[in-house]
């Protein structure tokens, strides 16, 4: 932890040079496979948090022979502590629209959708205005592509890609079984590329500057920059674009309030890292890096010593018990058990060993839940209970 260390700031996403028309027309004059290769060699991974290689996703969908395909921009930004997509859509909407259209060109889709979080309804008028202007330009250059906004209704689970499709199809937002995967069987059963808002914004950067410029940022396995939504006990909350691969210690050095007790990386479904592990924790995708690598959708919540980790966990579990779709057993019942279980331990109705039973349950949830929601509850639960066990009991 050196005090002289500077986090590597980047400034791509929000730099607005108003050149989207040029980027679009240039990109769609290149062969599709060239664009896919550009993405693959950039090593861009999905910025929603799961980290699937974006180029591969586009490639699989492009290779499908279906005559109807879709591109969907996932703007159902619901993870507690993340607020970057909202900013992208209000500051640089044309970058996202351009990226959606380029993806359409690459895969052969003629329709794009933005699945907009219900609570972001206020963004809709401006976004629609941008879409109108964008489509006008597409018509001008004789590029057949349309984009529509689909409003979400406030369910967290609809950010899960297959639940999102169900929601768009007018059904109850419940995750599907996988396989089949969206790239072959997505919205309306057609091949669908679904990308996070930020991922699409990064593809814009890559198509504009070439993959090298992006690849040169970050570290091995975690290339490029990423937006971070910084909140909690910090003197400077906000959105920051940083290169991936930084150590959490450096991050806390920059954003902490000199009393940081723990950082929640990746929102409620992410991990809580206690102070003693700041130095060995890197922010990036799993790989052969030294120490622990934590992927993130960009939510960084800092907690100082005034915070009760019991309350933090209680808050998360309330959220999950409420936002589980209720379909699969481990998630629907498991979340209620964990929530009621920590309260029972706190009140002394269950003994401290019950925490161990719940840790095992959390592991089962991780192995058996149908989708990412139920699988990831164990992340925050286990990391908090294991690191702050005494706060759970006393």
């Amino acid at each position: 932890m050196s005090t002289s260390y500077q986090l590597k700031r980047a400034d791509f996403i929000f730099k607005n040079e108003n050149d989207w028309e040029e980027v679009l027309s240039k990109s769609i004059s290149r062969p599709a496979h060239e664009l896919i290769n550009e993405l693959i060699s950039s090593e861009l991974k999905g910025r929603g948090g799961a980290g699937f290689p974006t180029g591969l996703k586009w490639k699989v969908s492009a290779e499908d022979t279906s005559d109807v395909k879709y591109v969907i921009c996932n703007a159902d930004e619901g993870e507690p502590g993340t607020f970057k997509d909202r900013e992208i859509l209000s500051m640089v909407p044309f970058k996202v629209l351009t990226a959606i259209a380029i993806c359409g060109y690459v895969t052969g889709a003629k329709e794009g959708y933005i699945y907009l979080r219900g609570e972001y309804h206020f963004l809709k008028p401006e976004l629609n205005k941008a879409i109108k202007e964008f489509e006008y330009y597409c018509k001008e250059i004789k590029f057949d592509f349309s984009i529509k906004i689909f409003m979400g209704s406030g369910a967290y689970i609809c950010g899960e890609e297959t639940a999102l499709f169900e929601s768009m199809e007018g059904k109850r937002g419940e995750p599907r079984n996988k396989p089949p995967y969206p790239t072959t069987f997505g919205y309306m059963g057609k091949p669908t590329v679904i990308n996070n808002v930020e991922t699409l914004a990064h593809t814009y950067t890559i198509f504009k500057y070439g993959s090298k410029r992006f690849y040169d940022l970050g570290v091995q396995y975690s290339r490029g920059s990423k937006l971070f939504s910084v909140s909690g006990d910090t003197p400077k909350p906000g959105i920051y674009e940083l290169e991936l691969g930084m150590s959490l210690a450096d991050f806390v050095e920059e954003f902490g309030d000199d009393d940081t007790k723990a950082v929640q990386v990746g929102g409620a479904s992410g991990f809580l890292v206690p102070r003693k592990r700041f130095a060995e924790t890197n922010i990036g995708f799993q790989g052969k890096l030294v120490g622990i690598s934590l992927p993130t959708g960009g939510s960084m919540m800092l907690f100082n010593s005034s915070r009760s980790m019991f309350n933090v966990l209680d808050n998360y579990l309330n959220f999950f018990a409420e936002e589980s779709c209720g379909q699969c057993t481990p998630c629907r019942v498991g979340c209620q058990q964990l929530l009621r279980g920590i309260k029972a331990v706190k009140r002394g109705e269950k003994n401290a060993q019950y925490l161990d039973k719940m840790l095992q349950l959390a592991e089962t949830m991780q192995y058996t839940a149908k989708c990412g929601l139920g699988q990831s509850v164990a992340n925050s639960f286990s990391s908090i209970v294991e690191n702050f066990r005494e706060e759970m009991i006393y």
Partner: protein
Amino acid sequence: MGKKLKITINGEAVEIVKGTSILEAARQAGIIIPTLCYHKDLCVSGNCRVCVVELAGQKRLSPACATPCEEGMEVLTNSYKVRNSRKHIIELLLSEHNAECTSCYKNGNCELQSLASEYKIMNQDFIHLVPFHNYTIDMFSPSIIKDDSKCIRCQRCVRTCAELQGVNALTMAYKGEHAKITTFFEKAMNDVVCTNCGQCINHCPTGALVEKNYIEEVWTAIADKNKHVVIQTAPAVRVGLGEEMGLDPGTRVTGKMVASLKRLGFDAVMDTDFTADLTIMEEGTELLTRLKQALVDKDPNVKLPMATSCSPGWIKFIEHMYPEYLGHLSTCKSPQQMFGALVKTYYAKARNLDPDKIVSVSVMPCTAKKFEAARPEMHDSGYRDVDYVLTTRELAIMIKQAGIDFMRLEDAHFDRLMGESTGAAVIFGSTGGVMEAALRTAYELVTGREVPFENLNITAVRGIEGIREASIKIENPLKEWSFLEGVQLKCAVAHGLVNAKSVMDSIVSGAADYHFIEFMACPGGCLGGGGQPIPTNPEIRAKRAAAIYAEDSGMPLRKSHENPEVAKIYKDFLFSPLGEKSHKLLHTKYTARKRR
């Protein structure tokens, strides 16, 4: 045959066809993987997670029901991790389930109970969640009781109601801890589009959905010395009851059923088959009358195609969904209700009984019959025509309670007057049966000759396809039916309300040009009814159907109009089909209902 794949399950090599799920592959290899939300009648949901298995190289477990096999897959169905996880999941389900097993109607026939027993869940550490929810029991329906505290959200009922029946009375609502299976605006089951078909009961793995039972009421009636208790038995009961007695599906137990009913103390045991034959006489005549009105009188108001009206689930369905098409329904009551109306008139008179002292009970493969018997118009005898309706399952419970060793019973015969039956009546219990019975009689009535099919078996209307079509050309009819010369009588058969819906839609669009359609609410017809033994699945229903047709071909009389008791009732009491008395006692009206 598709491409073959090689996988291993628990180390053993298995070869299966591409597209097979792990669950199915394991079953083929003789390895059982427990399931709860999976049902052969329904689409795969993969939500209970009881069937999770371990795949080599994967940290997460996969649901066997929803995961297709891939070449080289190494599957473990009983690893340490799998067993632990499965046990956890059963514990979780039990923690949200009101496990009052000893006072539960499904005690002894509950899939969750079996799993708990198999996995020996002895120490239930998890917090019991039922008290945190404000559960209610919906007892308003005359047919179905819905107890949310016993629901494990497997959604089998929801999928049944949507996929098999196209009714969508039950649906999933809310999310997370509040997720529940409910109805439109959480109304009571008797206040929504529910057809009372009971398929949700047949597919529920726990006691969350059960029939409203009338066992105690019937015991009380039997015990009352002042009452004369009469029971009628529907055709499909005799091919289902054996399953409840531990016999293989498809075992016929007609004689033993009658013997056990006599031992239970019923004063008369008679057969719904009798009124099934009577239905054919009435309905066949009605069809021919409508054809005459259409072809000879050119009456523009005559409603064709004519639809059967035996299935009360179907009746409520069309009343809700296609109320403007009620004129297409035959006005004939169902055999159960014809029987009820006759028991307290014809039978009472013949036996010199006070109809007020007769308790009329029926045993049906059906829960919708409970609703039908309670319809306000079903009082044509001057009394409630059918007092209590038991399902096949309820009868089995009574037989067991009475301590009857079912297998050692000597076969017995139905009592006279309304106990005679023909093969045509027996096949009412299967999809296509009413159609076949009607054709056997109508064709002969019109031409004076038997239907031109080997052994009277009209195989075109038999089978399991959801919708089947057949047509018979009428040649050389008798003089009074000469207007039918050369007419192709076009018929269709639909079972499962989702299929009924598609036939109705083709009528609405004008695409269908049938004359006569048989509709049955349940998959397979009555033999797959909502009151039949649980479990149900396509194989079991096929076996019951085979038993029905075997019963038919073994009967000396195979045509409704040959039933001597039917001839007698027309001679002594009714005088003629569609006559005045028939009209009063055997025919009915329908009620238009709303879709919500």
